[in-house]
């Protein structure tokens, strides 16, 4: 069977658009979460991405292009560049597999609140498949150009579907990942109403407000950004002399089908087992898990329960961290960003910390990466978990090589 490898990485994140610099900042435990929208009745915090759209578009090209698409084009272009000389590739044999939870939130918000006239390109700006289409336009992709909108698992699912397409020989090259940009007042208010955001009593508490698996956790902060990976067959990568960051050797998808928003450990465990099975690995082969870890009261212990039920006696050997404490929850782009982080953890054999967890909740007891700067000399395989509202669970499994 054809192995699938990762040969390019591109990101636009709250920690910048250089994957190595971003990873280094995470390794140091630097939080990018800051206070936003002081005019809102309830204090809010989020992680916004530093980004200059004019580096990627002329002003004329920006007509009808929402930020969510701008971020996607930038990250996908950086990933393509990072993959080096792609050799001869038929545009019909390239695919874009992009995750997006909401689409162009800023365009919708502007249409409603911006002024007397609704901008004429509001619809093509906010449609959730716009980011994938703009990536295709920019890179002349004529193969499948698909969007996966699966809430917080969107881009993890997109990467799994891309890997399937590469493995099946449907495409030679997949641009896989996702983008999200919904840090606008209306969306922040909606998430506050959902009671899932971390409480921020004072502005100077924003940076440490997200505390996954901690006894005093109170939820997540929204983040924005985009991440894309270039996937191709191991054989093709070898033939063109490409650098391979890691092999994407397993993926598992499942649905809880128990509740729209309440997570379910057996459902998550099914996705974890499916990923291990596809990779032909045992739980103890996995050294690191980049957890979904949204720091909600309900979510974190359920993820712990799912991992423990699959890992059994080996759970103590699995190192776990949720990097959402530092970059926020990128929702539809979370799976892609966290896949990039997991790949870099393997590549550098270093594990980013589970920050701000001074006192671990006994119900979340695991071998958490509590210190910044931890090395993992023998790390061979790692997983990235993404569990969505709607009940869909997606697990990606990467191996060195």
């Amino acid at each position: 069977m054809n192995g699938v490898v990762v040969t390019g990485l591109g990101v636009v994140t709250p920690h910048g658009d250089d994957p190595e610099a971003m990873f280094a900042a995470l390794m140091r435990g630097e939080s990018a979460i800051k206070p936003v929208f002081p005019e809102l009745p309830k204090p809010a915090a989020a992680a916004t991405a530093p980004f200059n759209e004019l580096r990627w578009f002329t002003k004329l090209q920006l007509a009808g292009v929402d930020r969510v698409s701008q971020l996607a084009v930038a990250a996908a272009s950086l990933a393509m560049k990072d993959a080096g000389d792609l050799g001869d590739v038929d545009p019909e044999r390239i695919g874009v597999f992009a995750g997006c939870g909401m689409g162009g939130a800023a365009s919708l918000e502007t249409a409603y609140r911006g002024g007397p006239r609704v901008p004429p390109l509001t619809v093509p700006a906010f449609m959730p498949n716009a980011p994938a289409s703009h990536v295709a336009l920019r890179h002349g992709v004529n193969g499948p150009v698909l969007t996966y909108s699966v809430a917080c698992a969107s881009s993890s699912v997109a990467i799994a579907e891309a890997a399937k397409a590469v493995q099946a020989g449907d495409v030679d090259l997949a641009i896989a990942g996702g983008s999200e940009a919904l840090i606008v007042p209306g969306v922040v208010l909606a998430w506050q109403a959902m009671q899932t955001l971390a409480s921020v009593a004072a502005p100077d508490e924003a940076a440490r407000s997200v505390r996954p698996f901690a006894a005093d956790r109170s939820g997540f902060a929204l983040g924005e950004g985009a991440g894309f990976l270039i996937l191709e067959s191991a054989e093709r990568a070898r033939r063109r002399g490409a650098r391979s960051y890691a092999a994407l050797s397993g993926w598992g998808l499942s649905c809880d089908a128990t509740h729209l928003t309440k997570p379910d450990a057996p459902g998550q465990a099914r996705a974890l087992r499916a990923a291990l099975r596809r990779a032909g690995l045992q739980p103890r082969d996995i050294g690191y898990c980049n957890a979904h870890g949204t720091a909600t009261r309900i979510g974190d212990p359920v993820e712990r329960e799912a991992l423990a039920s699959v890992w059994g006696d080996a759970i103590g050997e699995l190192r776990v961290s949720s990097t959402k404490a530092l970059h926020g929850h990128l929702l539809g782009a979370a799976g892609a960003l966290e896949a990039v982080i997991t790949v870099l953890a393997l590549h550098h054999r270093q594990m980013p910390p589970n920050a701000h967890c001074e006192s671990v909740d006994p119900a979340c007891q695991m071998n958490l990466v509590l210190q910044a700067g931890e090395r993992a000399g023998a790390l061979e395989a790692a997983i990235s978990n993404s569990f969505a509202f709607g009940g869909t669970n997606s697990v990606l499994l990467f191996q060195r090589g």
Partner: protein
Amino acid sequence: MSSLQALQDLVHEKYGIEASALDPNESMREKGFDSLALVEFIFAVEDHFSIRLPDDDPNLDTLAQLAALVDKTLAAKAAQPAKAGDAVPVVPPVEIQQTVHPAPSAPSA
């Protein structure tokens, strides 16, 4: 007076394109104004002059043609007898197509 200069200023302000880089008789589409960008620009022109341009010319393709259309529309507006409170509406009338959603009735299953 022709509105061409004002249109050139607007193109510069919105897109950073100098007047010298866009010949008034040159195809705007060939200069990167695709149909979407053109729609957005026409909205900006309407807002700038507080007018509503007739959308009866799909072949509109040069700045000079657009300037002529703006001039014609401005002239027509000036010729109208002004009535008290007869301002050009900034918000165009929107035709709302009524979609009837039947009220939920007893479950049909």
